[in-house]
């Protein structure tokens, strides 16, 4: 005879059911799922993540990629990479999945107030920063200049095409392609190639997310441009299982857990080697 031992709310391992109400193709490999929460609200701060449960497949962490002012829906942007994310691409509107969260420590929004905000995203890393971008636009007056520096490899990899047009109206959006097609009129090269053209310095705070291989070089380049390591924040990715600091899968050098001490870290608090591969 099975019985409930602990109420669902008290057990941090138990996900809550949510329904997919829309699936948007962002690129060939990337989809954004819009999830509807029933009878409960999820209040989160940009930078936090949820554990998405696909029944029978497993769980994986994804940063919330929607506005924090909408507590009844959340968006998750997911690129097809592993077993779970491939399964995600078979989901359709109407399917129900589970989420646990919000988990992790968010971006320190108060520390950004009154500063120039530089958001550096490469590849799918922009999904982890989208809620911060939306926050910066919704609270535009709190910040000086807001710049999104977005680097992708191919033209087809650019996601959030509709949103980028919208964001350009209120913040400075710089897009660069490292493997641009001949007809591309925008910037070429890596994001680190274009830091010179931006006005960076002591009054700038940076939020960075990208693949582990490039994040440490971005953080290095930002420091060379005069931004203090106290003002650079990175959002890290690790293989997470529990999300509450019990399984030790997301440990990074320094003995910090990405799930409870992160995923957002100040570069000054972790060794730069901890960011990279």
């Amino acid at each position, binding site marked *: 005879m*099975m*019985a*409930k*031992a*602990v109420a*669902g709310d*008290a*057990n*941090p*391992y*138990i*996900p*809550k*059911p*949510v*329904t997919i109400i829309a699936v948007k193709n962002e690129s060939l490999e990337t989809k954004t799922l819009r999830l*509807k929460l*029933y009878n409960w609200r999820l209040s989160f701060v940009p930078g936090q993540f949820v554990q998405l449960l*696909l*029944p*029978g*497949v*497993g*769980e*994986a962490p994804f940063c919330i990629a929607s506005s924090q002012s909408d507590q009844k829906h959340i968006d998750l942007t997911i690129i097809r*990479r*592993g077993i*779970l*994310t491939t*399964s995600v691409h*078979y*989901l359709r509107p*109407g*399917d*129900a*999945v*589970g989420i646990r969260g919000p988990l992790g420590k968010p971006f320190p929004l108060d520390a950004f107030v009154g500063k120039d905000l530089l958001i550096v995203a490469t590849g799918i890393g922009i999904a982890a920063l989208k809620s911060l971008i939306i926050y910066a636009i919704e609270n535009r007056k709190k910040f000086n200049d807001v710049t999104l520096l977005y680097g992708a490899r191919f033209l087809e990899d650019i996601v959030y095409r509709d949103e980028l047009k919208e964001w350009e109206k209120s913040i400075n959006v710089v897009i660069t392609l490292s493997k641009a097609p001949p007809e591309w009129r925008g910037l070429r090269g890596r994001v680190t190639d274009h830091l010179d053209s931006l006005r960076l310095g002591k009054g700038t705070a940076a939020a960075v997310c990208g*693949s*582990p*291989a490039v994040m440490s070089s971005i953080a290095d380049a930002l420091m060379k441009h005069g931004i203090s390591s106290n003002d650079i924040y990175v959002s890290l*990715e*690790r*293989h997470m*299982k*529990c999300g*509450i*600091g*019990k*399984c*030790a*899968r997301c*440990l990074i*050098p*320094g*003995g*910090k*857990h990405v799930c409870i001490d992160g995923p957002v870290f100040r570069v000054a608090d972790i060794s730069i080697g901890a960011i990279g*591969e």
Partner: protein
Amino acid sequence: MRKALFCCLAGETMIKISKQELLKLPSLLSAMGYRVIAPIRAGGVVKLAPLGPDDQPEVEYIRVINSPKKFLLPDDESLFRYRSTATITSYGLKIRFPTAEGPCPVTILPEYLPIRERLAFFGIHQCMVSSVRYLDRVMLSDPADPYYKNRREGMFIAELDCDEGDEYCMCRTLGTYKIPAGYADIQMRKSGSGYLVNAASEAGKELLSRLKKQDAQGEYPKPVPKMVNDFELVARDEQEIDAKGAPKSLEACTLCAACTVTCPTCYCMDIEDKFSLVDPSNVSRMRTRMSCQRKCYSAIAGGTAFLHAKEERFKWRVKHKFPFSINAFKLVGCTGCGNCVAYCPAGVDFREFVGRRVA
């Protein structure tokens, strides 16, 4: 006189009993409603196992191949079960909750068995008691792990003092031969032909009240461990560990993960969904043992892994025991039990790496 008064104030009672009486303790514990786990000699090794009515607990041993971890954080356990609808499609098994039209149906009805039994560990040494303290620090820090907490509540520890280690022990260096306060309900110690038993909790006193005994005088002696090989720690900082070359014995390492399996504090876990193809709609969310010696420990989607060579994985384990645990939990993760050295088929010795041999 003052010492006796101090003992009373500390709430401790010490008795002296024969070995015969000592071996009655497990059955008394099960009469008190505990599930008794004790060291048993089987197949050439001593291991902790649930004590059956005919089993004789082993009280003269040096090391056990497993640890309380096996019972507090089992090698695999079902966190909860849920039912879902499943269909088999061309690309494999596809499971989803029932499609929702209108309001979301309540489809996650997690079910799991409450753990009602209380555990009692009989005859475990100080290093294993220290491992319980470390697991507590990890699992009960906020938010507490409900499954661990459930098992840990009302647990009884009957500790057996160990003074003489084998060539793999290192508890003197780490100070884990001392029992942390509140971690043993009774302490037992060989003394002449009999045993000294000291009750340190109410449950311990209740157990001793059921014995034929002789009150003993004086203070319960403190263990003084004698090590065959003595070490002092030289590298416990992350930088020091990174800067050191891997030990020569690591060349023979086959990444078999015996070190993490036999370690009483290696708590790394994997969580995954399991179901039978016969009844795919009945899914169990399983928590299973994971090891940092395996590539999948650190691999993220797309195949990027953070720990590649076996040298990195060896150092990672040492770092998790020392600097990471000191930073995150304010406690050293190694209890000096020596299991990872004793049971390593390649003979890798981390003590040579973190410590320096002293005469």
